[in-house]
């Protein structure tokens, strides 16, 4: 095997090329079909071998295991057996019905078999030597009946409360894992998290190929689920903790890790939607695929500038996805209409999508997962996040920074031009953004609102714009019923009467 030696670990998200290479080189894998998990594991779980999925109660083990089977049956034509030790068939079917899976149908089509193993210690008297051959018989029969390629044992450790002889159980578990390997099924075994150990009964001793840990934490009333590949023998894998989301489509894991600085850099330029601003940016506007920050105090016209950008993208026939954390879509459309930007037709045409939610609704990472999912779904060329400053309210500064870094990486890798809006609070230095993400930003447009005599005037300047000659001027601008218009260069000096 010329693959990376055992234990080689990747610290950054793999490129598709890497994925392909590793998949070819190393041991065979079975895709789970679970969004993001296949990326982290560089191609799925070890084929024909058992994987241990452990976590505390409510961490999503059963769902992950079930989704692995359901997607295997539906997407990869690999029938699966679900051996349940805790929930009966009815409960299991109920649990995944909300995800749009119909277990009954799959069972009828012989793509899935469910066996509920019920062991009630109080009903059983132990009178001498025994083994768990009955379990093997049941599993073997279920596998044979549907030609299963995948098996789930959830939660195997329940056996320990059903039988009193741990020595027998351990010997039988060892035999079971060997048997599963001999049968060549790709298996997921779930285990309950124990004190100071991955599982209460030390199942990790038996499963040496792949161990995945799920975690569910609540910090400041915000819950975050995380997944980590603790061990994956014979292959490289991401080692970080990856946040994941359980929603109406199942599990989505966010595969991104640290800064991957290998995204393409386009020479193409796109309009900012305001002719005056384009001319300040070397006459051509932003670079496609760059990250843009529009910052300023309240009421300085940030969202209007963002709307121009969205409008310009849609005019080019490109899809634009806007995340609004302060206003509802209806409110945004009304406000923008008042300055001559009509976004409604773009929404109707399917070019524009506005996603509004309160930033405190989810934890930071959940936002990130959510944004990821929508970007993958909608596949926009332009993304607007208005404002990013609110993210600091749902997490610490460092977390917000790390999250934005990951977000920018993800969007850049997809060639998406992203405009971030950031609110600068009163009294703060204008050049300072709460999230301190300046180094991640390619073009930074600063808006300010200053009092001159008896009126407030809006001014704009380009603080920086990487890779292009840009104007150093501070330009005055007006928000008119026809949108933002920049005053002529040099106009600033003259006082309008």
């Amino acid at each position, binding site marked *: 095997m010329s693959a990376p030696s055992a234990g080689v670990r990747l610290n950054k998200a793999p490129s598709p090329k890497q994925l392909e290479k590793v998949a070819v080189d190393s041991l065979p894998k079975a895709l789970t079909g679970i969004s993001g998990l296949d990326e982290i594991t560089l191609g799925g779980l070890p084929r024909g071998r058992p994987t241990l999925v452990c976590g505390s109660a409510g961490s999503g083990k059963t769902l992950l295991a079930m989704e692995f089977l359901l997607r295997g049956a539906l997407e990869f034509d690999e029938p699966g057996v679900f051996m349940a030790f805790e929930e009966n068939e009815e409960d299991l079917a109920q649990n995944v019905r909300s995800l749009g899976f119909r277990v009954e149908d799959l069972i009828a089509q012989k793509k899935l078999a469910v*066996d509920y*193993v*019920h*062991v009630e210690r109080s*009903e*059983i*008297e*132990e*009178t*001498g*030597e*025994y*083994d*768990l*051959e*009955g*379990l*093997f*018989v*049941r599993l*073997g*029969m*279920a596998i044979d009946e549907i030609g299963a390629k995948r098996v789930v044992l959830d939660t195997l450790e329940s*056996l320990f409360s*059903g*039988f009193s002889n741990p020595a027998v159980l351990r010997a039988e578990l060892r035999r079971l894992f060997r048997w599963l390997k001999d049968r060549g099924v790709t298996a997921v075994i779930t285990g309950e998290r124990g004190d100071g150990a991955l599982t209460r009964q030390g199942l990790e001793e038996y499963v040496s190929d792949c161990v995945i840990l799920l975690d569910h934490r609540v910090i400041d009333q915000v819950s975050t689920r995380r997944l980590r590949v603790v061990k994956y023998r014979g292959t490289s894998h991401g080692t970080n903790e990856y946040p994941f989301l359980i929603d109406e489509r199942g599990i989505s894991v966010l595969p991104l890790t640290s800064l991957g600085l290998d995204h393409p850099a386009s020479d193409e330029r796109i309009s900012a939607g305001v002719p005056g601003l384009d001319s300040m940016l070397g006459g051509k506007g932003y670079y496609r695929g760059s990250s843009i920050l529009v910052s300023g105090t309240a009421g300085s016209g940030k969202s209007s500038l963002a709307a121009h950008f969205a409008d310009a993208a849609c005019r080019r026939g490109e899809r634009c996805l806007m995340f609004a954390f302060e206003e509802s879509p209806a409110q945004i459309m009304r406000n923008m209409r008042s300055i001559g930007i009509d976004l409604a037709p773009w929404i109707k045409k399917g070019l524009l999508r506005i996603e509004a939610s309160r930033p405190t609704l989810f934890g930071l990472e959940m936002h990130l997962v959510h944004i990821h999912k929508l970007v993958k779904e909608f596949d926009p060329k332009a993304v607007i996040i208005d404002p990013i400053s609110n993210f600091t309210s749902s997490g610490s500064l460092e977390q917000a920074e790390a999250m934005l870094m990951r977000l920018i990486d993800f969007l850049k890798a997809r060639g998406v031009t992203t405009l971030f809006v950031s609110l600068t609070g009163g009294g703060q230095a204008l050049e300072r953004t709460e999230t301190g993400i300046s180094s991640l930003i390619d073009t930074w447009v600063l808006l300010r609102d200053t009092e001159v005599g008896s009126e407030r005037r809006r001014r704009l300047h380009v603080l920086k714009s990487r890779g292009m000659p840009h104007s150093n001027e501070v330009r005055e601008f007006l928000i008119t019923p026809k949108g933002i218009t920049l005053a002529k260069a040099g106009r600033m000096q003259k006082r309008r009467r």
Partner: protein
Amino acid sequence: MTTSDKWLLRLYTAGQTPKSLTALENLKRLCDEHLAGKYRIEVVDLLKNPRLAKDDQIVAIPTLVRQLPSPMRKIIGDLSDTERALVGLQLKKATS
């Protein structure tokens, strides 16, 4: 002591393993001593009838199930611990 009319005992095995054979021997001996003349033993080989393992919720082998008289009772192991076997079959009260 429950020694009502007829006892139906079903022993689940998986092939002719030493444990199964021991269990059957022990069971016969036990029945002859305590249930002479009013018992029937059925041996179910799960290798021949695998479906019954699921239908009857059998995990451990050997498992002895008291079908009659009801309620149903399950005993696992080769029945070499006579004391516990009798308790399990409710032929004897558990001594605490």
